[in-house]
């Protein structure tokens, strides 16, 4: 990797000002994407501002009709949280299947969402569960947060302090993994929250996570696995690569949605 200045922040505000003050500063959360990128010399930030020491950014809080997960909470802690497991088991199970144990022991929800990898799992949870992304500057609705692959509406010096998930009536996440990377080739979160049915798809879209409105309509009318499976998704706007054609991804969206409905009950 190229040389950079390493800074360790004591608070979210301190981190934000350090990044803003730097010539080309970057927040360092779990580093599960950023560090490999640096090692391959694909990025050359002037400063890395490490968020690891900020205790305010870690933890999971019960908000009654919601759960708030602080930005630097690791995947393993979401997966093992009794609160998450009892209130939103789909989210705990999603976190438990991100990457491998090493990734889950380092990677964080805030880091994953700020990176917005088009095949990451958490974006499907945020959009499917209609979560709110809370930053040091504002609250952003899931609908407004994602802005294309590896792109979000986060501004310079803006960092994710927490994510608030409303408690769904039913939800489940099904992932068909890329055989090599084990990222989602197609991952689908289906949820019923406050009478609203949502189906969020990661891994498949050229612009990152999206809502499969055709399946949402089908499930709103008839919450059943067969209804989801019967939807023939268009392959417009879907990724095609050596691992999957757009057509295969379109097909897998319906199949994974249908299996998620079965799992959600």
């Amino acid at each position, binding site marked *: 990797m190229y040389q950079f200045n390493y800074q360790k922040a004591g608070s979210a505000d301190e981190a934000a000002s350090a990044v803003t003050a730097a010539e080309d500063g970057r927040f360092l959360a779990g580093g599960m994407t950023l560090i490999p990128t640096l090692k*391959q*010399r694909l990025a050359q930030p002037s400063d890395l501002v490490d968020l690891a020491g900020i205790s305010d950014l870690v933890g999971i809080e019960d908000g009654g009709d919601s759960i708030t997960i602080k930005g630097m909470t690791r995947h393993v802690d979401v997966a093992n949280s009794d609160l998450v497991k009892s209130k939103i088991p789909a989210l705990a199970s999603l976190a438990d299947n991100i990457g491998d144990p090493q990734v889950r022991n380092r990677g964080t929800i805030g880091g994953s969402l700020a990176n917005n990898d088009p095949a990451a799992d958490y974006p499907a949870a945020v959009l499917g569960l209609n979560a709110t992304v809370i930053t040091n500057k504002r609250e952003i609705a899931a609908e407004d947060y994602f802005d294309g692959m590896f792109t979000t509406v986060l501004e310079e010096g803006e960092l994710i302090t927490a994510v608030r998930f409303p408690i769904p009536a039913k939800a489940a996440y099904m992932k068909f993994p890329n*055989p*090599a990377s084990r990222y989602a080739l197609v991952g689908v979160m289906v949820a019923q929250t406050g009478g609203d049915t949502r189906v969020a798809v990661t891994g498949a879209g050229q612009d990152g996570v999206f809502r499969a409105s055709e399946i949402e309509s089908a499930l709103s009318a008839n919450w059943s696995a067969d209804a989801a499976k019967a939807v023939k998704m268009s392959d417009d706007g879907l990724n095609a690569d*050596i*691992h999957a*054609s757009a057509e295969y991804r379109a*097909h897998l969206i319906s*199949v994974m949605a249908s299996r998620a409905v079965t799992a959600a009950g």
Partner: protein
Amino acid sequence: MTGTGIGASVKRVEDQRFLTGNGNYTDDINRPGQSHAWILRSPHAHATITSVDISKAEKADGVIAIFTGADMAADGVGGLPCGWHIHNKDGSPMLEPGHPPLAHEKVRHVGDQVAIVIAATHDAARDAAELIEVDYGVLPAVINMDAALAGGTLVHDDVPNNRCFDWEIGDKNAVEAAFAAADHVVSIDLVNNRLIPNAMEPRAAISEFDRSSGQYTLHTTTQNPHVIRLLMGAFVLQIPEHKLRIVAPDVGGGFGSKIFHYAEEAILTWAAAKVHQPIKWTAERSESFATDAHGRDHETHADLALDKSGKFLGLRVATKANVGAYLSTFGSSVPTYLYATLLAGVYTTPAIYAEVQTVFTNTVPVDAYRGAGRPECTYLLERLVTKAARQVGIDPVALRKMNMIQPDQYPYQTPVALMYDCGDSPATFESALKASDYAGFGARRAAAEKSGKLRGIGISTYVEACGIAPSAVAGALGARAGLYESAQVRVHPTGSVTVYTGTHSHGQGHETTFAQLVSESFGIPIDQIEISHGDTDQVQFGMGTYGSRSLAVGGPAILNACNKVIDKAKKIAAHIMEADVSDIEFADGKFTVAGTDKEMAFAEISLAAYVPHNYPIEEIEPGLDENAFYDPLNFSFPGGAHICEVEIDPETGDTEIISFTAVDDVGRVVNPMIVEGQVHGGLAQGVGQAMLEGCVYDDAGQLLTGSYMDYTMPRADNLPNFSVATQSVMGASNPLEVKGVGEVGAIGSPPAVINAILDALAPLGVDDISMPATSLKVWQAIQESSVRQAAE
């Protein structure tokens, strides 16, 4: 009895240091005054080098020196040689275009070496490399073999149509006659997918030059240090053996990819004498993907002629094999003598003819990878035979049985040069059918159907030739080196033993298995025995480890040296115990005089040999230290039967291996636990080839599968609990009666997996799928069949 002799599942003695982080790998070694190298590589698959401007780079912080291809060419450095000479059909020699260690005037694959930057630190070298300005004249790349053979773009200007050679084996007329008389002809077109080896340890090297002695030393990640000394010393750098030391310390896996003499070894060794300080280089994983020699990459059309009853009459094979941009060390032998000489397989096919064209492309060289030619051959045969069974309407088990070589037919002369010394394919096949409950498959398929799954079963019966090789045979076929092995057995005064072997262990467990041979021979426990390998200054000579040769060729060398020790020790014992040598018996580590109670322990004799106060000095020399070279009588021919059972989720194409049964004939088993581990590892690689691994270049020659994000290595959860067993006919061509085991898993398994997948898909009318049979391909095959069926 020591309990550590032949047949004992002794725990691997080397694992203690490997598992506790105490291994001594090349990158763990640091030499005083060491500098670091970064190799600047071509980003283009095919380009002329118009100019290389190092003026900015050489002024960068920490830079010691920068060398380019022009510097090496000006110094008269030779090209990397190919170790096996092949002739065309018309008798003319294969074309061997130059392979300069640092590309000169032209680059021919992404990753081709363009310059070496030597600096005080790794980062400084890499930083400076970014300041080198290379002016490339980008040329069209040729990746596909048919396109390459059509000419147009030439990888090497002096190789028309990019054809390295056009070779044949077998009796063409006899095969044509067989086809003319055939009742059935079954044809198949297959691709044997290109694989990227992935040893856990990437390649690395440290070079040194001693100005006072003129001695070069290279620590390198190789499977065969003496071969590197020979190839690099004699052909590339003109350094005589006594001035060149090659050390291969602990090496973390090779699978063939560390046999070859790589450019970096020559570049570093040459440069060490320029900068007068040690130079260290360790490949990054991305470099491993892009520059380690790849494996397989065949396209084949084959026809099988059968009579009315299903008897095989003739086999005709036409193969195109990709050798990449340059001929690697064994690039020419793998798709010829290691491939087509096995086309009889386990069958009595009387007439066989094969032609092989090898093709240069703008891709990294292709060379031996676990199995090397034999997986390609086995895949072809076992797919073809399975297809024949379906086409002709004969049960695949029955068709195989009726064509198999019977045990009383050995030694069996095949129509393609090899003579199988011994074997019993019907026996291993029968055992595998039983162990896999083949007869009960129908019920399991029906049960799977009820849960919406497609279940299939696939068979592969195989034989392979390994234990490379009798030197005379190899030489007659074009090998440019002998293929014997050597051993020195040095008994120390107190009776402990050091064995120097010319083979090299990079995961195989030689330090245990070879010690067991000595333990058996001398009747001493293995903790008294050290196996030493890898340093050309310590080990007398050797040809290294590949082609499952270490035990079959290296083992008898150790045995013969042990026997020489025992012969000499008996003379010492006879002298001391005042008996005739013919009355001295040796068993369980004790020398006894027949018919008396006189005895001397092994260590007493060794002490006497080194403290020869009471010694037959007029008859024999002091010391107990013997050397032996062993050249085998024939290859060894392991074989067996692999049976795979899969279940497919038709909605997604997801395929799960439910069970995998392997019954292998590997001759005498020295350490059953190590043998089982070797078979497991081979099976994992075979399953990887069949279902997961596939190297993809785009049309411009960029490697799309250049990391684990896109290249699917098999993981534990891709594999079932293997059911493996050995059932052996003792090897007939070496005194240990052993055969090779390192490659059998990777050779036998891919067609078993694919045949199982095709069996599962057969009810849908699917009759072909290519490796790797990923979920995507399985799903597509199902879709195409439903579209076809709907249309019908």
